[in-house]
């Protein structure tokens, strides 16, 4: 029942610029994309602007950065014109963000349960008791076996995989319609990663929402997402269906694929990516 054509987020010609002492650095240059009720992956190397793009959508860029766009439409909200007050109700309630490392992104001096409840109390003005009920149900939904015990734990008392599941429950408890996940599993072991992803996958499908999955792991994005956006030096070089990634045309995408060691296609030497300055001209 997933309708991919139903656009949740539309971004047209968005640029993010950082003024520095030695001139303006353009971290993201004229990117346009839309996200429906689907899983969209953004891949690129460090510094390609993938995280900056994710943050700019939620207007979480550093205060000095300048975001320009022809259009940034999230459901019925114009993100370019929305006041900071409006944004407060968008962030967490309508667009939620899952970050890379739960060790650093959870509040270390608040219990897990309090942190998750905070989101519901803030956005839905429910009572503490109701918030607790909701939190326990949500923890159970992300396969935490003993939610009552985990509710009172501090982030340092839980493992990495559990921390990431807690983060997912915190982000999903207010029922957002778009989730931006910035390298959600990079800090996790392979076995735990699988678990966390399948929970995320289930929830996205079950609630029929959109997901932007930012990652540098080609194999992961290819197998997890529906569509893949490939970024290079702040620009989108190509957008392909995940299943067609092997047939990607852009030399940069091809270069990344060939640079990857693979069990299925062993090679003696890995291809080294040659960067072509012409990729930056459009």
């Amino acid at each position, binding site marked *: 029942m997933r309708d991919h054509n139903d656009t949740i987020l539309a971004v047209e010609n968005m640029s993010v610029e950082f003024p520095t002492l030695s001139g303006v650095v353009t971290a993201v240059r004229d990117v346009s994309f839309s996200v429906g009720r689907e899983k969209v992956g953004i891949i690129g190397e460090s510094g390609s602007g993938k995280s900056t793009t994710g943050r700019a959508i939620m207007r979480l860029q550093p205060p000095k950065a300048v975001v320009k766009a022809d259009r940034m439409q999230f459901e019925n909200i114009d993100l370019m014109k929305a006041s900071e007050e409006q944004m407060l109700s968008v962030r967490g309630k309508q667009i939620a963000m899952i970050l890379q490392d739960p060790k650093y992104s959870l509040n270390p001096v608040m219990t897990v349960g309090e942190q998750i409840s905070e989101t519901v109390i803030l956005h839905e003005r429910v009572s503490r008791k109701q918030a607790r009920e909701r939190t326990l149900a949500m923890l159970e939904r992300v396969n935490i076996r003993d939610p009552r015990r985990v509710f009172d734990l501090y982030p340092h008392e839980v493992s990495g995989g559990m921390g990431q599941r807690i983060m997912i429950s915190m982000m999903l408890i207010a029922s957002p319609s778009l989730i931006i996940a910035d390298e959600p599993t990079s800090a996790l072991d*392979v076995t735990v990663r699988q678990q966390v992803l399948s929970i995320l996958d289930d929830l996205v499908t079950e609630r029929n929402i959109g997901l932007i999955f930012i990652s540098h*792991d080609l194999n992961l994005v290819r197998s997890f997402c529906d569509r893949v956006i490939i970024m290079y030096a702040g620009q989108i070089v190509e957008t392909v269906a995940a299943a067609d990634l092997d047939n990607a045309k852009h030399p940069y995408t091809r270069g990344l694929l060939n640079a990857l060691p693979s069990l299925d296609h062993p090679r003696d030497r890995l291809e080294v990516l040659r960067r072509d300055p012409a990729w930056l001209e459009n």
Partner: protein
Amino acid sequence: MSMINVDHLAVSYGRGETMTRVVKDVSFDVAEGESFGLVGESGCGKSTVLGALGGRNRQWTGTITIDGETINQKRSISQLAKQQMVFQDPFGSIHPRHTIGRALLEPLEIHGKNNRQERVEKALKDVGLPLNFRYRFPHQLSGGQRQRVAIARALILEPRILLLDEPTSALDVSIQAEILNLLKDLREREKLTYILVSHDLAVVAHLCDRIAVMQNGTFVEVASKKQLQNGSVTHPYTRTLIDGSRGYVVKQV
């Protein structure tokens, strides 16, 4: 002849009540010029095995023979030079306020080597860095270049063995390919023996002929590269790791 022979190695941290045995009982052999891989999840003890081999951790029992010489917990300086380590994070493993040249000189000073200037130049050339990089500071280098410096620092003592602890985990795929190619070339040119620790099975299988899969401080399986490629592995944990390296596996309902 085998370059490294490890028999019933057990390694622990801490003393008395709080002593934790991280590596329980591992035995393996690495031939001269071979690359041996260690994979497993965090905390399984793979880096600790390297630590014991490299002389970083002395709290071990069992027998370690390197290049025909049985090693004691305390080693001579020439025994220590025989194997050198390359660490994961090139941002954390090079002194931020020393120039590259000075970082490369340090092992030479400790080991009392002569011809220091020539050795520094040769090491930089070996890893494909321009000679004027010796006057730079680590923050003026990219991640891949820093990892080359870390490899140069390990090579400068002319070791027989390189102990590689996740050498490409902090790098982008394109840079990872460059470093893996460099490691392959160096092994052939300098006749080096490698032990490579990684959590990425594809990386280990690319460089290594035999791969030990570790879980909870023991080897669950030692598989050949072929076995990993055609999937004829026996242990379920190895299979999980293989599936994981291919990406996300949709649950079968």
